[in-house]
Structures are given as structure tokens and as C-alpha cells.
């Protein structure tokens, strides 16, 4: 952080605004984990931090280091790409595990799981 004083005022303002906004959005997402009632609703909350929250902070990082090193620094794009394609995998796994558990416990307020076709009945019924 020793480089921070070198940042011109406009950049410092923009960067701090974006960082605070991103942190705020991520915080709201975490708050959702506490406030929403059902498990399936709570799975939606972390995606706030993973999209807009992470986006704001990564843009702030791009602006900050591009200004400090006076050349474009865009490798944060890779972070956003990887976060975008990996977060859904986790969330989908969680939701499907929850659905499976609810079925195993015999709850009726969840939609039915698709029936698996018997072995040898054509190509496997892949579920994505």
C-alpha cells in the first residue's frame, strides 16, 4: 500500500468508490445467507459477491495498477473469467445435493427428481 499516495486524486476517488461498492455488494450477498429462509434461496446470495461485487473490485484493481504502472493491466479479466465459470459449478452442486437430500428425507415441498431410465435403455440419460 506504500504506493497509494502516488495515485492521482481522480483515480484514488474512483478506485475507492469501486472498492467500497464491491465490498458492499459482497456484504449484501453474505447478509442474504443469514436472512433468506430456505436453503435454495440462500444459494442465490453468494452470486452477488461473485458477479457485481467481484466485478467492481477487479475494475478498481485494473484502474489502480494501470495508473500506477502507466500501462494497461488487464490480467484481472482472467480472474473474472475463472470466477464466472467456476462459481456456478459449486452452486449447482449444492442445490442438487440439497434436492437429493430432501428427497431422501421424504419432503414433499420439492419438485420430483427425474426418474432414471433402466440400464440399457438407449444412451444414458445424462443430467446436466
Amino acid at each position, binding site marked *: 500500500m506504500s504506493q497509494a499516495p502516488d495515485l492521482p486524486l481522480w483515480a484514488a476517488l474512483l478506485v475507492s468508490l469501486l472498492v467500497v461498492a464491491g465490498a458492499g455488494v459482497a456484504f449484501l450477498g453474505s447478509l442474504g445467507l443469514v436472512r*433468506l429462509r430456505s436453503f435454495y434461496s440462500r444459494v442465490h*446470495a453468494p452470486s452477488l459477491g461473485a458477479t457485481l461485487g467481484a466485478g467492481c473490485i477487479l475494475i478498481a484493481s485494473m484502474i489502480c495498477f494501470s495508473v500506477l504502472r502507466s500501462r494497461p493491466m488487464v490480467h484481472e479479466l482472467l480472474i473474472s473469467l475463472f470466477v464466472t465459470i467456476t462459481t456456478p459449478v459449486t452452486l449447482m452442486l449444492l442445490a442438487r445435493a440439497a*434436492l437429493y437430500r430432501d428427497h431422501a428425507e421424504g419432503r414433499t415441498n420439492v419438485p420430483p427428481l427425474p426418474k432414471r431410465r433402466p440400464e440399457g435403455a438407449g444412451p444414458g440419460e445424462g443430467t*446436466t
Partner: protein
Amino acid sequence: MNRILTRILPHPKLFLALLAMWLLMNQSVSPGQILFGALVAFGGAWSMVALQPEPVRLRRPRAMITLAWRVFLDVFSSNFAVARIILRGRDGDRNAGFMTVQLDMTSHYGLAVLSIILTCTPGTLWVNYTSSTGTLLLHVLDLVDEEEWTRLIKERYERLLMEIFE
């Protein structure tokens, strides 16, 4: 010519993508980094052969740009929508529920992209897809009008994805 190229370099697009990723990560385009990145990308492209992926056919770059822009706008606006639901209080998710959508798309790549789009967008969550019937089960945080969500998925995303992948 093309066949010779794919015998030496099996997945040229993947090779270029991996090379670009390597150079971006190292933030340099010096000859050494290009050489090293090319080696890594070469290994990556060849290890992909062992996985035997279905060939991808990407078409309509304009549809891709439209789709990317739509997703960007929707992710942005649904962030605010979900934030509002969270701030509404303990009863905020009273409209949450499951719904099913009948998809016409069969391309695996298209479905994978759609699942990422839907799950990444706060407020919608891809739960299950049954390929024999083409039924998608998803969980929606603000399920007031099921028709509207169906229209959003089918017209806003699925049509473009089918143009790109099928």
C-alpha cells in the same frame, strides 16, 4: 492443409486461448514467454485429445456479442433485484420457488453456457436438466410470473445460443 495442422496441433483454438491466458498471466509478450506459453498450450491441446470432446462449431460472432451484452445487463440489474429482496427482511424470499422450462436446445455446449448464465445471474439457479425430455428445473428467487421467466430464458438466451451452437 487443415488436416496436417490438426495432426500436429489438435485443438488450434484451445491452443491460442491457452497461449493468450499464459501471456496475460505473465503480462509480457517477450519471446521467452511466448515460447514457454506455446509449450504449455501445446501440452494442453494434446491432453484435450485424450478427453475426446465433441467438436464445437461456433457461428455468428454478432450473436455472441449480443448475448454477452444481454448477460452483462441482466447480471447487473438482477444484482439490484436480489439485493432488494435480501434487504426486504426475513420474509424477503416469500416468492421463491421451483419452475420448469421446456428447452429446445440439445447442444451440450449451448446447455453448458446457459447453465453458467442462469446460475451466475443472481436470482436464478439451474438445478437439473433431463436430456431425454429436455426439461430444465430451476429455482427462482422472485417467482411472481412464471411466464415471464420462461419467456426470458427462451427468447432472450436460448434463441441466441441455438444460433451460435446449432
